[in-house]
């Protein structure tokens, strides 16, 4: 790290300095033992989510997005290990220091998760109504009848037709879209402050995807929760989020307001991601792809983790790991180009190359 660099702290939107953020991840590190070493799936991740806002966490598969989601609720076990020195704070409270029982009181109650594949994420042998009611009874001392009524009310709220009848059905008797509505109902039945949606629409048909996204946005307005949307789909991020964090190699490589990121990506990886999105308004012969693959989490490259795939990389990138640098107010990128912008124009290669 050089003296001239200004390692930025995670974003605190202007005017909010005094407030405690809803979720604050600092130097989050999660490791998994694998054959031939230790996979550093999440490796020094900083992220902020303010109450009520929608943040997108974007990256290719294998970049550590889902592990981050699970680590927030300490669900990476038994194999995963959250390293000492990591910090996960919910409204200032250190979740990593909580005893098991208090941690369980957070899960599903203050922070809820929606998973990618609702068919395997729902218990196949329990009625969906019971699975939702169970979440209520885990956190509130209510009668079975009340919990059941809350489940049906929530199923109605997520737009499941004939909620009362459906509540008595099993997951395999529902369509994929309905199952994801059930997952969302289950996550929101205790009115969490933060909903983490891990690829919530990836397993669904395109038409259903739009419905589910609309539903999430509507419920967010109604219930006032914050949403951390984890996805590889930049289109989804553009439509639904206020801020975006781009993840690569177990770290955040760029973080900005959504509009700013789409207008002026500061990190070459983000540029590559944006160039890989098919666009209707620009004629292009073929889609660009980012050359190479995400390196294995057991051996991140030295220096900048993206340098082997980066069209601009120079000597410094191979040896020195860049910190998150402030490219513009509220816009940070983990890239030496922020300090040496001249290098960007000097490179002849555009971000990404033709396959």
């Amino acid at each position, binding site marked *: 790290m050089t003296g001239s660099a200004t390692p930025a702290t995670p974003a605190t939107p202007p005017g909010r300095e005094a407030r405690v953020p809803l979720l604050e991840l600092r130097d989050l590190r999660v490791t998994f033992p694998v054959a031939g070493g230790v996979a550093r799936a999440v490796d020094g991740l900083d992220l902020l989510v303010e109450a009520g806002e929608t943040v997108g966490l974007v990256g290719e598969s294998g970049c550590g997005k889902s592990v981050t989601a*699970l680590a927030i*609720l300490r*669900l990476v076990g038994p194999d995963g290990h959250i390293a000492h020195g990591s910090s996960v704070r919910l409204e200032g409270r250190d979740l990593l220091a909580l005893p098991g029982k208090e941690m*369980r*009181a*957070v*899960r*599903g*109650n203050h922070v*809820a*998760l929606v*998973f990618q*594949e609702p068919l*395997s*994420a*729902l*218990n*196949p*042998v*329990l009625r969906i109504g019971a699975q939702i009611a*169970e*979440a209520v009874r*885990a*956190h509130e001392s209510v009668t079975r009848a009340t919990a059941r009524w809350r489940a049906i009310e929530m199923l109605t709220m997520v737009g499941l037709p004939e909620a009362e009848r459906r509540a008595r059905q*099993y997951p*395999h*008797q529902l369509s994929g879209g309905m199952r994801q509505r059930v*997952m969302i109902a*289950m996550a929101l039945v205790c009115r969490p402050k933060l909903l983490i949606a891990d690829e919530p629409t990836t397993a669904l048909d395109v038409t259903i995807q739009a419905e589910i996204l609309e539903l999430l946005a509507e419920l967010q307005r109604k219930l006032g929760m914050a949403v951390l949307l984890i996805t590889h789909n930049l289109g989804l991020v553009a439509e639904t989020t206020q801020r975006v964090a781009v993840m690569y190699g177990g770290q955040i490589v760029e973080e900005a307001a959504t509009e700013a990121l789409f207008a002026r990506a500061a990190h070459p990886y983000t540029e590559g991601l944006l160039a890989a999105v098919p666009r209707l308004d620009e004629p292009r012969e073929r889609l660009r792809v980012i050359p190479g693959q995400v390196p294995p989490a057991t051996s991140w490259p030295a220096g900048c983790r993206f340098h082997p795939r980066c069209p601009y990389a120079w000597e410094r990138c191979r040896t020195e790991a860049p910190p998150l640098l402030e490219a513009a107010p509220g816009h940070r990128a983990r890239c030496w180009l922020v300090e040496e912008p001249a290098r960007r124009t000097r490179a002849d290669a555009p971000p990404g190359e033709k396959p």
Partner: protein
Amino acid sequence: MLGFLARRLALAALTVLAVVTITFALVHLAPGEPMLGNAERMRADSATIARQRARFGLDRPIATQFAFYLANLARGELGESFVRHRPVALVLGEALPNTLLLGAVALAASFLLGVAIGSVQAARRGTWVDGVLSIGSLACYSTPSFWLGLVLLLVFGQQLGWLPVAGMTDPAAPEHVGPLGRALDVLRHLLLPAATLALVNAGAIARFERGALVDALGAEFVRTARAKGLSPAAVLVKHAGRSALAPVLTLAGLSVPALLTGSVLVESVFGWPGMGRVTYEAIFARDYNVVTAAAMIAGILVALGSLLADLAVARADPRQRPDA
């Protein structure tokens, strides 16, 4: 559901018919003959034996004998025991309830014990507890039941003298003990043979339950259950346990034949007056009618066992219901 039951019962009837045919053929083709047992030979001359053979139709061709047997069976006649000179229905009718009592207690105990051990192992997987229980259940599973029975008998019956060594009731029990006293007496006699059968079977069920639970604990819906904030016990029992139940119930149903064959040996060891002992004695006496009828009843029990297991599985797993 009714169609499913009808199909299954028809299939069971065919299976039982096949069992009867095969057993009939086997006992008749096996070396040795009835009426030539030691007791018979000492008392009877060859003319008497020939008369007896004619009386039971044993001098006719085997096909004819089988036709007669089936015709009798269709009328509900199981024939007469060559050795006991009593109707087979009576001989087996006395023994069957005792075997059912022993088998049902052993099956229930082995299921509960196996599921409990397997659950503890899954919850503590990778620890020394898991290792010790794993060795224990493997040892139980691989021990021959008659040997285990003898060891239990020696230890608890002979050395410690806590439990009776043989029979089903205490012949010296006073008359006035009443129904409760008699039940307790049977229970005391039941304990060792039931424990023998249950331990062997529980070993198999525990190993299976552990595997099914560990698989279930890795499933995504278990992660969902944890993400809901459920306690580890609720996750293990309600979510992983429920979904691991179906395969274990299937195994319990499939262990009915093993329990029945096991009971042949265990009943002999403990002098338990059940089907197993009657069958065992009948086989050595070449008491054809008893052996064939016993095999038929065993076939019926196995068919019923697997049908009940399938119904229980359908109860436990909605995806496996015939109308789903």
